[in-house]
Structure formats: C-alpha cells, structure tokens
C-alpha cells in the first residue's frame, strides 16, 4: 500500500507544525460526512445486475408475493464474461422472474479461476450463491467442503424430468460421487489443436494429426520473434500446462492422477508426453512462463501463435461481431484433434461446463432458475450465442437443429472432433468417474513448475517429473487428511 502519509511523521519528528490551510482538501471532509450516511445503505441495495420484475430499487417484496411462487433473491455465479452469453442468460432470467414475480435474480461474473477462492470466502462469510457455474473439478472441491447443495441438485433433476433429460451416462462419468450429484451439465466442448490455415498452406503441409506432423508443422510455422509455431501457456496460477500434459498422457494411454489418489506423474506415459511437449516447446516463445490460458485469444488474434490448444470458441468468437476479434482473422483459423499418440491414441480433454446448486439459502429459487436455464428456447439461445463452441449436453436440444447454423456448418472437422471428444474424452482425472485429487494437484502448480523447467530450463524430463510426483503426493496426502476427517 502506498504510504504517502509516512512522510508527515518524519517531518513532524523534526520540527513544529505550521497551520497553513488546505483549502482544496477541506471539501473532502465535508463530503465525507454526507456520504457516511449513504454508507448505511450497504451491499444489499440495488445491484446493477439485479433483475426485478418491476425494476424498482426496493427490497424484494416478499410479503406481497403470491403464495405459490418463488420469492427472494436468487444469486447466480457464472464465468461468462462475454456480452453475447450474458444476453442469452438474461433471457432465462427474464422468463424466471416473469413466472415468479416475487423473486429476483442477481447474476455475477466469477471468473473460472476465481471460483475456488470465492466460494471458500463466501462459505466462511455465509454468502454462497444459490447456483454456480464452473468446471466439475472445481465444483468437486466445493462439494468436498460441503458447500454444494446436493439435495437441490437432485430436485433440479426431478424438475426437468429425471436423468434421461441429460446426456447418457453423464452423472456416472462426471456428476456423481458417493451417490450424490454434485453438478449438472450446462454445455460441453473439446480441446482442439487450433492452427493457422494460411500458414499451414504456405508451408505446403496438410492438417497435422500425429505428433511428428505437429512437430513438423510447428517448425514450419515458427518465425520468431514475429510468431511462434506452438504457444504453450505455462504460467503458474492456471492449469493450462497440466491440461496439455494430461492430454498428451492420454494419447499415450496413461493417466496423471487417479481417482484413488495415486500419482502417475513418474510413469513412462507421462514421461513420453512431457518429452513430446519439450520438443514442441522448442517452437514456442521464451516467455511461455508468463503466458496464461486467458491470454490465448489475444495471442491468436494478434497472430503471434500459429498453433495452440484451445476450444473452438476461439474460432466462433469471430462470428459474433466482436470488434476486437475480427472475422477476417478468425477465418484464418481452423482446428483438429490434439496430436495422436504413437499407437493412434487420443487425448480428448472434455471441456465440461457445469452448474450446481450451492448452499446459498434459496434452494427453491435455485431449482426454478435452473429449470429456466434448461428450458428449450433459453438453452438453445445460450449455446448458440457463440457458435461452434457450446455443444448441448441435454436431450431437449435436437443436435441436428443445433448443428444447422451457418457458422457451424463451415467447420465440419471441428464439429466432428468436438463431438468425438465429448463422447470419448473426459474431464482430466475423471477417466473412471469423478476424482477429487486431481483438482488440488493441478492447482498446486507442481505440474506447471515441472513443465517450465523441462521446456524453458532444459531440465531432464525424468528429474522434473520425479519432483512433481513428490509434490503431488504431498498435496494428495494433505487432501486425504482434510477429507478423511
């Protein structure tokens, strides 16, 4: 914190005080007194994103609400910062408040990575949301700490017509642990290798599918410092490097952290995956350690990377009219599956985005709002708000009509690889169902640090991974201690 004030003390120590007047500043004092009164009107007064049926600033009129309807505020946290997706969510909120005139929706953007900190602080402060949207690994951590309302999740399932409303086998693969449903799907995507078609054409190469082809393409499309062949975001503080390692480990037929809490980071499969990423890293920038996943959109649209791991959102965003991501640049991009392993194995990292009811105090509201979010028209508007990106995980949306979108029709391979990934792939670590150990290991940065050492410092793969393995074991042990009681 800036401490301009320290100065005064130093000076005061030496001499007497002058009584000069500070005219400009005196006004601040007066204003302070006035606003002191206003501060009594604290947090609970009109948030800009609160939707009330009558658009008044008054507190929710619980007493006047019809007896049958839902009342009170429903707080939803979601990570969708783009205006396109927010507008589609608003449609569902409006439908909800129309059906429940006594209720209001407060919608707050909580970034993917901020969720872990926010629910923990919110739990301590008694300010959890009623519904939260994030990825299953993060939601599972909240569930472990008993912040998720599994009964309300079950009520949502019942309200929309049972588990058959959702994609087949969803809950066993991603949503249920010890018999309790801790999340429900909102949409899904797959991690693809997104490449610059124009640079690939200029190099006279076909779509890179195998590890060798990807390495060759990265080398051919590497023109540093102007642009890199393949940018791997390796920054500490996000899990992008862990994701890449998991994807390539799966392509080699292995796993990183098992649901039983076993670390396989010292296995041959992980070693081979890391070795490939090391070779690929030669065609990446020296600054990889300060690049996070969040910057990848900007890097793609400023042209500094020829290939990257990303979802098809990076292409779809160009078709939404967003000024910063112009269509002519987006049209230079195309995508395919991530590099295949030596035996043709695939690593499909399911981009599963889920919602869950949390212990926010308005379970009825959470159920009704979730119902509105899942309602056919509202959900379709949402999953099409950024085309080519959000694939439905519920059976009320007909896949053919979803795919019948002009932008989506332009990218058949992207669609095919995404659908394959959603069908065959899994959330990292969820290969055999939900896994509460992988989240803490991935967020502990042990894998990020190992990959930085391997790619940027030339440390031996086996050494770096052995250290990551030790780190992972410590994290797992701590996690066991906490959840074991």
């Amino acid at each position, binding site marked *: *914190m*800036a401490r301009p*004030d320290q100065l*005064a*003390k130093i*000076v*005061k120590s*030496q*001499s*007497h*005080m*002058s009584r*000069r*007047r*500070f*005219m*400009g*500043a*005196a006004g*601040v*004092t007066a204003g*302070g*007194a006035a*606003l*002191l009164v*206003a*501060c009594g009107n*604290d*947090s609970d007064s009109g*948030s*800009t994103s609160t939707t009330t049926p009558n658009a008044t600033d008054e507190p929710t009129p619980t007493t006047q609400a019809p007896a049958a309807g839902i009342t009170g505020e429903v707080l939803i946290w979601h*990570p969708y*910062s*783009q*205006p396109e997706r*927010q*507008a589609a969510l608003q449609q569902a909120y409006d439908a909800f408040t129309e059906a429940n005139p006594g209720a209001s929706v407060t919608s707050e953007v*909580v*970034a993917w*990575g*901020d969720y872990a*900190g*926010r629910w923990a*602080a*919110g739990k*301590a*402060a*008694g*300010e959890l949301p009623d519904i939260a949207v994030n990825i299953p690994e993060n939601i599972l951590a909240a569930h472990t700490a008993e912040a998720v309302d599994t009964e309300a999740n079950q009520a949502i399932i019942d309200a929309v017509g049972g588990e058959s409303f959702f994609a087949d086998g969803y809950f066993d693969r991603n949503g249920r642990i010890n018999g309790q449903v801790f999340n429900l799907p909102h949409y899904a995507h797959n991690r693809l290798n997104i490449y610059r078609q124009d640079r690939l054409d200029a190099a006279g190469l076909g779509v890179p599918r195998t590890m060798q082809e990807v390495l060759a393409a990265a080398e051919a499309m590497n023109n540093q*410092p*102007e642009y890199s062949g393949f940018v791997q975001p390796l920054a500490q*503080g996000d899990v992008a490097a862990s994701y890449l390692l998991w994807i390539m480990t799966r392509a080699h037929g292995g796993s990183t952290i098992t649901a039983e809490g076993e670390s396989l980071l010292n296995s041959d499969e992980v070693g081979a995956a890391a070795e490939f990423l090391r070779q690929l890293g030669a065609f990446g920038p020296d600054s990889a350690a300060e690049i*996070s*996943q*969040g910057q990848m*959109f*900007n890097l793609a649209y*400023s042209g500094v990377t020829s290939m990257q791991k990303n979802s098809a959102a990076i292409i779809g965003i160009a078709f939404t009219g967003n*000024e*910063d991501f112009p269509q002519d640049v987006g049209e230079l991009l195309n995508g395919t599956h991530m590099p295949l392993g030596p035996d043709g194995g695939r690593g499909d990292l399911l981009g599963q985005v889920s919602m869950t009811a949390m212990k926010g105090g308005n379970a009825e509201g959470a159920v009704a709002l979730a119902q509105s979010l899942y309602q056919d028209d509202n959900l379709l508007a949402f999953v099409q708000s950024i085309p080519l990106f959000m694939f439905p995980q519920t059976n009320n949306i007909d896949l053919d009509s979803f795919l019948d979108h002009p932008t989506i029709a332009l990218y058949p391979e992207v669609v095919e690889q995404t659908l394959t990934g959603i069908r065959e792939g899994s959330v990292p670590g969820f290969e055999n169902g939900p896994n509460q150990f992988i989240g803490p290991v991935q967020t502990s940065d042990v894998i990020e640090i190992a990959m930085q050492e391997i790619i940027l410092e030339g440390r031996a793969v086996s050494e770096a991974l052995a250290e990551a393995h030790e780190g992972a074991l410590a994290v797992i042990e701590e996690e066991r201690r906490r959840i074991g009681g």
Partner: protein
Amino acid sequence: MDDPRALRGRSRVGVAVFLAVMVAIAVFPLIWLILTSIKPFDEVYTFPPEYIPNNPGLNNYDQLLNSEGADFPRMIRNSLVITVSTTAITLALSAMAGYGLARGRFRGRILLLRGTLLAYLFPPILVVVPMFVLIADLGFAGTYRGGIAAYVVFMFPFATWLLASYFATLPRELEEAALVDGASNFRSFFEVALPLTRPGLAAVAVFTFINVWNEFLLALIIVGGGENRTLSVGLNNLLTSDEGAKLGLLAAGSMIAIFPVIVLFISAQRHIVQGLTGGAVKG
C-alpha cells in the same frame, strides 16, 4: 536571490541529463497508459509498438463504462462510498483521539501512543485473514461495512498520530481562556481546538482518501470480488481475466482508477507537500 551554489559549466549538463532521465522514467508509464488506452485492439497488439495512435478513440473507456453489463460504474461507486466513508470516520475518530492524547494526562498515555505507532507500522498482510474470519463471523464480509471497518483500523493510527502532534502545538492559553469562560472541555475541543487544526484535518483527509482508494489487499479479502468490489479488485480481475486480458481495456481501467488521485494530488499538492513537509520543516 542568488544561490551561491548555482550551477556552472559541466556539472550543469550533468544535472540536466540526470534529471531528464529521472523525469522520463517517472512520467513515461503514465503517458504510455494514456496512449494505450485510446488505441484500438490491433494497434495495441502490434510489434514494434505504434508510439502514436493512428486511430485514437475512446472505445476502451466506452466498453468499460457504457457497454451492456459494464461493472465499472458500480465499482467506481463502491470505491467512492468506501473511501469517503472511511475518510469521514477516520477524521472523526482520530481528531477526538488525537486531542485526547495531546491534552489528556492519564496513565497509559505513553503506552497508547506507542501502541498507535505500532499499529500504524503494522502490515495488513499479517492480520488480514484472521480479520476476515472475524468480520465474516460478524456477517460483514463482502460488504461496505466490513471494508470500512477494516480500513479505519489501518488509517486511524497515523491520523491520530498526526493530529495529536498538531494539537500538541496549539497554545493551551486559548482553550484555558474558553474554560475560564465556563465552556466545557468538549466545547473548547469543538469550538477552539478543532477549527485551528483544519490544515491537519485536511491532510489526514487527503491521505486517507488516496490510501483507501488505492488499496488492494484488504479490498481483495475483506470486501472481496462480489458486487461490492472496489476498482482495485475489479482492475486486478481485468489483469488476470480468464477470458482475454485485453491490454487496451487494462490501460483504460487504470486511467479511470488513477484519475481522481492525480486530480486530488495536484490540486492539494502545494498544501500536502508544503504544509506537511516544507512548511512544517521551515516553521
């Protein structure tokens, strides 16, 4: 007045070059912030950089302040409410405590003064988490009230210290005259001592305002990232945003955050610097 140590010859050049470099380093980041904030996306994301914008515009500001669901206006309001309230409460509490410490003669006074100094030097990072636990237990985590309560803790000690020094320099005769005239101690505080301390109060107000407006850690933990988040926290979200931390927006957001401080600083600069340093030292 002729300075006998006025510069001559080579040393004059040396001083000029040194100061020019120092000023350039001090000023350039602000200039670059301004320039970046008015550039469109493609001019920000280019290398070598475009020093002067070709198509300057206020799009970044517009997006932060006026777009659908823009939360900057709310964050500005949050910062204002928290900052101004903290300033007002700090002024009131520290003026009272400062006078009590300067004029009172009670046991434990020295201990309190030392305690004030210790509290002033106490780094928030060392206590912020238990403070959060306490404020959360009281139900004020994530609210204005929680934030203000925490900020007053860290602003009060310095303000008290400063004002106690101020009151200590006031001639006692004025207050004693008031007492002889039958005024209560409280009246002589309000009507005699307080008006004479206006410069000190103003300094406290300015410093408290700037410090709270600029503060990050308590804002992050006590007020949190929710709907009451301050500009500092909102700006940090932009910095670490998951979905594209755009540098142009970051620059515009930074300008919005720094603007009131610059205005306050420049308009009160003479008073702050001369009153609290030069003036005081000369006096």
